[in-house]
């Protein structure tokens, strides 16, 4: 039986995160197919069809799917799920919103945010903020799985030539309406896929001073992240939060500035290839995971570092 990957997109572009989910799906056994549910989403379907090793793309193009409301999407996915062994999505706020609704309607237990595929029914997933790894085996007939994208490479956006087939919309669940979106504007690369991430914490002290972090990031063409404390204090928007309950990143280089290194923060960045930390407290736990630790006042060190890298 085939594996169905639910595509995440904005009706014009397929999001990168889904390519990582495709790679995970390819390890689960059967051929991989994709579902694009959207409105005016032909370009997304085309991108899916070109994705390497994807064999078929189902498109449900309907105004009900203009915005990814789980009340409308879940009935569609459930209708299709019967022909698949697995239904897979990236563990993003989209996947986390929709997939548990799908699994409950199918009366199966979702396997959340897997970090590895051991076999078609056995997976590894981090629990307790990544302080433990659980190897779990599912006995459900359909496996509903969300994927930690940093743990799987992106499937290639070229080389595929999947057939694109239309499917009918399912009766929408209703009861929920989209009102508006306020997306954070940034010229910086996207946090979860950037090669370099510079993150600031409470030590940065204010929204104004967070500009320092932005400048350093701009110099490195890096994405900007933050600790929960920096987000709570209003230095930066919520979508900058890295950690157990924010975003998980694993860039080539992660620079933590004025971040103490609480377990909840480490959960979101400790798979980074190289970690550098700047902190004035030599005892800060962040140094225990840092490849390069600089004990310094960030207000001196960050401008100097930015200058040196120009």
């Amino acid at each position, binding site marked *: 039986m085939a594996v169905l990957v639910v595509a995440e997109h904005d009706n014009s572009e397929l999001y990168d995160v889904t390519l990582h989910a495709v790679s995970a799906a390819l390890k689960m056994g059967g051929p991989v197919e994709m579902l694009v549910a959207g409105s005016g989403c032909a370009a997304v379907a085309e991108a899916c069809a070109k994705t390497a090793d994807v064999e078929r793309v189902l498109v449900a193009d309907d105004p009900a799917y203009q915005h990814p409301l*789980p009340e409308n999407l879940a009935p569609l996915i459930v209708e299709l799920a019967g022909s698949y062994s697995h239904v897979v999505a990236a563990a993003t*706020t*989209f996947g*986390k*919103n929709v997939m*548990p*609704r799908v*699994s*409950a309607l199918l*009366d*199966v237990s*979702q396997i959340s945010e897997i970090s590895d595929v051991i076999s078609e029914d056995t997976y590894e997933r*981090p*629990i*307790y*903020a990544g*302080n*433990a*790894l*659980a*190897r*779990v*085996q*599912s*006995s*459900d007939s359909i496996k509903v799985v969300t994927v930690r994208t940093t743990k799987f490479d992106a499937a290639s956006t070229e080389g595929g030539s999947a057939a694109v087939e239309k499917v009918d919309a399912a009766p929408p*669940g*209703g*009861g*929920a*309406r*989209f*009102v508006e*979106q*306020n*997306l*954070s504007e940034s010229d910086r690369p996207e946090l979860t896929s950037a090669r*370099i991430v510079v993150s600031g914490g409470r030590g940065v002290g204010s929204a104004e001073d967070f500009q320092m972090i932005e400048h350093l990031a701009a110099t*490195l063409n890096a994405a900007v992240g933050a600790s*929960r404390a920096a987000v709570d204090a209003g230095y930066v*928007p*919520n*979508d900058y939060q890295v950690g157990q*309950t924010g975003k998980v990143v694993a860039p080539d*280089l992660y620079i933590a500035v004025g971040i103490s290194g609480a*377990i*909840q923060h480490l959960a979101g960045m400790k798979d980074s290839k*190289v*970690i550098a930390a700047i902190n004035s407290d*030599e005892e800060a736990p962040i*140094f*225990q*995971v840092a490849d*390069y*630790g*600089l004990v*310094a006042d960030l207000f001196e*060190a960050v401008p100097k570092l930015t200058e*040196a*890298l120009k």
Partner: protein
Amino acid sequence: MKILVGVKRVLDPYVRAYVKPDGSGVDLSNAKMSMNPFDEIAVEQAVRLKEAGVAEEVIAVSIGPAKSEETIRTALAMGADRGVLVESEPDLEPLAVAKILKQVVEDESVQLVLLGKQAIDDDCNQTGQSLAALLGWPQGTFASGVELADDKAKVVREIDGGLETIELDLPAVVTVDLRLNEPRHASLPNIMKAKKKQVDKKAAADLGLDLAPRMKVLHVSEPEARQEGVRVGSVEELVDKLKNEAKVI
């Protein structure tokens, strides 16, 4: 309107989780346990809605071992009116928890369910969405804003790109995120008062639901620890290491 709040007893967020040497799970014997932090935020929101006159009653429900009553008492001390303890073995899967919650929702004729977005032990992030599905209700997940008026809930959601606002017809399930509010600390008099509030107890096994686990935990292990690296003495040295040793810039 009645509000149901789900409160889970979990390992305290500021305590380290240790894996048992036999790989059967995380060692919780003698560990400090607390209310799941997101659930504190859910309780706070429910109590505020009651204080604002929007809700008449706030019911706190916990599913788990008998000790989960402590977690319910914490919610009662924060201002919830009464509790429901559904005794079960620990580590029920979210699907099973959602089935039990559905039963409680129906028994109590609840209009709004407030849950945490995620339990910080299993890190599943499923229960609210699954409960909404089982009830056939709309859902507002990862909420950083909740407003109720005219049988509708306006929910601001924290999503990967920023914020999204949706409108839900009540009844609905809302799962809360970190920025929704700052939960209060219960005062001593309120802790005393909470001891006298009513907590109904039932056994999960008596509910006639299929709660059988769908997943077998084969093994739990500690992740590979990162080695601590070196300290550099200056910004110049840091740049040099990043360029020439790590070769990442």
